[in-house]
């Protein structure tokens, strides 16, 4: 197990380095003066642009720049965002917890709904209620946040004043966590897709578990319907869900980017989108790397949890 974790950690580091390299290459395909102008602004004189190019070493060879960037990152110096005039690390530290709150709440909420729903559909399989729920899952599954979000805003915040339509951008995590009127719609919007997909996963995972030998054995020994369903099938059906959760992290993060844009929610997604639009290289690189690290770590945790939950799993070597 320790060997496995070490190998996975090495892999994770390679993945994060690869992501950095990728974003770096894309941005450095642009000529140096464009990158400099993105920092000092369109009305800078040629001399000022030259100065910025010198200061940021944009005229150095590519590998040289990348190496410098790596050294900076190794010392947790993520650079400076000129557009916002703040260190990238500060910006990330401000916004990451808010995104964490949104994604965490939405995911927990989604699982609390999706898992019972999946079990319910298994019990009622191929009955009308199953078909209705399946159709709903299909529809919500295909409904991106930028469709669901505005619809919810129009009907629940504008026509009926139950919730606030957008989230105040200066809110701290504590303020967000206590203001349910502001948080409900973003959480619902982000959770919808997860509910749709995980109720389906849970349904098919339960159906698979019910075909296992141990379920037949339990039935043969006279275990009741409820006991077979919850003590035997349900607990085993949950195991793949953990892995699927790890694997769908990039998509949940993508959903968070869109949801944050719909509601002006002050988080990492909003930060990334605006940084990309302003050609703020340091900030884009920083946020993308943070996203990559989170996803990789999430996957790693899911894999480890998976081994903990299921004693049959033994990782080789």
């Amino acid at each position, binding site marked *: 197990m320790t060997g496995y974790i070490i190998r996975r950690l090495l892999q994770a580091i*390679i*993945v994060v380095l*690869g*992501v950095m390299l*990728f974003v770096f290459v*894309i*941005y450095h395909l*642009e000529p140096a003066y464009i990158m400099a102008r993105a920092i000092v602004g369109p009305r800078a004189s040629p001399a000022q642009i030259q100065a910025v190019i010198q200061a940021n070493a944009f005229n150095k060879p590519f590998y040289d720049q990348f190496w410098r960037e790596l050294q900076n990152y190794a010392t947790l110096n993520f650079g400076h965002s000129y557009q916002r005039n703040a260190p990238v690390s500060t910006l990330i530290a401000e916004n990451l917890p808010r995104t964490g709150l949104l994604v965490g709440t939405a995911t927990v909420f989604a699982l609390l709904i999706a898992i019972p729903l999946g079990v319910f559909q298994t019990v009622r399989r191929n009955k009308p209620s199953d078909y209705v729920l399946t159709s709903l*899952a*299909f*529809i919500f*599954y*295909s*409904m*991106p946040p*930028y*469709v669901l*979000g*505005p*619809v919810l*805003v*129009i009907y629940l915040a*504008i*026509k009926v004043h139950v919730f606030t*339509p957008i989230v105040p951008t200066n809110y701290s995590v504590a303020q967000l966590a206590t203001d349910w009127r502001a948080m409900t719609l973003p959480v619902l919007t982000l959770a919808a*897709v997860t509910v749709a*997909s995980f109720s*389906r*996963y849970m349904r*098919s*995972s339960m*159906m*698979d578990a019910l*075909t296992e030998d141990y379920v037949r054995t339990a039935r043969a020994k006279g275990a009741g319907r409820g006991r077979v369903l919850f003590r035997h099938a349900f607990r085993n059906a949950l*195991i*793949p869900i953990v*892995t699927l959760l790890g694997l*769908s992290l*990039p*998509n949940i*993060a*993508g*959903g968070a*980017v869109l949801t944050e*844009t719909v509601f002006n929610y002050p988080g990492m997604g909003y930060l*990334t*989108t605006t940084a*990309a*639009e302003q050609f703020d290289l340091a900030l*884009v690189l920083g*946020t*993308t790397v943070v*996203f*990559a690290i989170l*996803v990789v770590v999430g996957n790693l945790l899911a*894999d480890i949890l*998976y081994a903990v939950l*299921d004693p*049959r*799993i033994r990782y080789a070597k």
Partner: protein
Amino acid sequence: MPSDPGPVSGGGEGIVPWASPMIGAPPPSLKPGGPADAPFVAAPDAAGGVLPPPGDAASAIPAGGEARHTGSIYRLIFRVFLENKLAVLGLALVILMVLFCFVGPLLYHAQVFSATYNIELPPGAGHPLGTDGNGVDVLGELMVAGQNSLEVGLVAAALATSIGVIWGAIAGFFGGVIDAVMMRIVDVLLSVPILVLLIVLAVIYSPGKWTICLIIGFVAWQVPSRLVRGETLSLRTREYVQAVRVMGGGGRRIVLRHIIPNAIGTIIVNATFQVADAILFLAALGFLGLGLHFPQSDWGSMLSGGSTYMEVGAWWLIIPAGSCIVIVVVAFNFIGDALRDSLEVRLQQR
């Protein structure tokens, strides 16, 4: 108990969750009996859908009879497809939307240029779905924007699938170091949220219609590449591939003429979901204001314009465009699901 077709599948800004468990090296315990694990088309393909058990089939079919077999499997897919009500519904919805977008403008002449008093009108006489913030008729806009959404969706999906198929087939066929390096690259790309990559690329290249297809194709090919690599790993040990080798066929011939045609089931299923994904990607870019440039438009850009007016409750700027996106995506997901059922589950019983 009949095996469940598997979790809901398909698009959703790169959600593709159904693919996740199948791609790459699946975590160990998804293997036993997981829905995603069906060993898959190779068997029905080799059997040409005619001979029942794959075991006999592999030995019974001579290596030369490929054209006939591909023909018959397409017929079989078609027949199984028509038996599936959801698939027919999906196909009907797609045809309906194509007619709406491409034939609609011939029948419905929207008054595109309009005076300021026409701005943001609710649905009513003359404008069945109202007008937007620029005074453009929403119904007419919906049709024209839909052309872009559908075209970009199809082209980008074709591109992503082609890149992925070639990448995966090469990695799987050569194996070893080449495979390891190529698949690590896929891993790297899969662990960035695709949307973030898309945003970065779209900002830098400030794309037009066809560049956007390239960009979407470029960020979305990893899932098909993993699927095809997996297929290739199992196909390359088949007798007919060995036979080609013995007869002196080179790597390119084996990959292009033998491995890819035999993995075509996986490829088609995934391509269908790719279309749904690509439409959602374009819509997401459009919504973020990074999509097609004015006066070009797509359903996502319409939503972007509409969400500026959501505070005044202008539902007609959100719901029509949103419904178009959802209908098309649901339709392609239905089709993809049905194709997967027909290729993976039903054919195996024959």
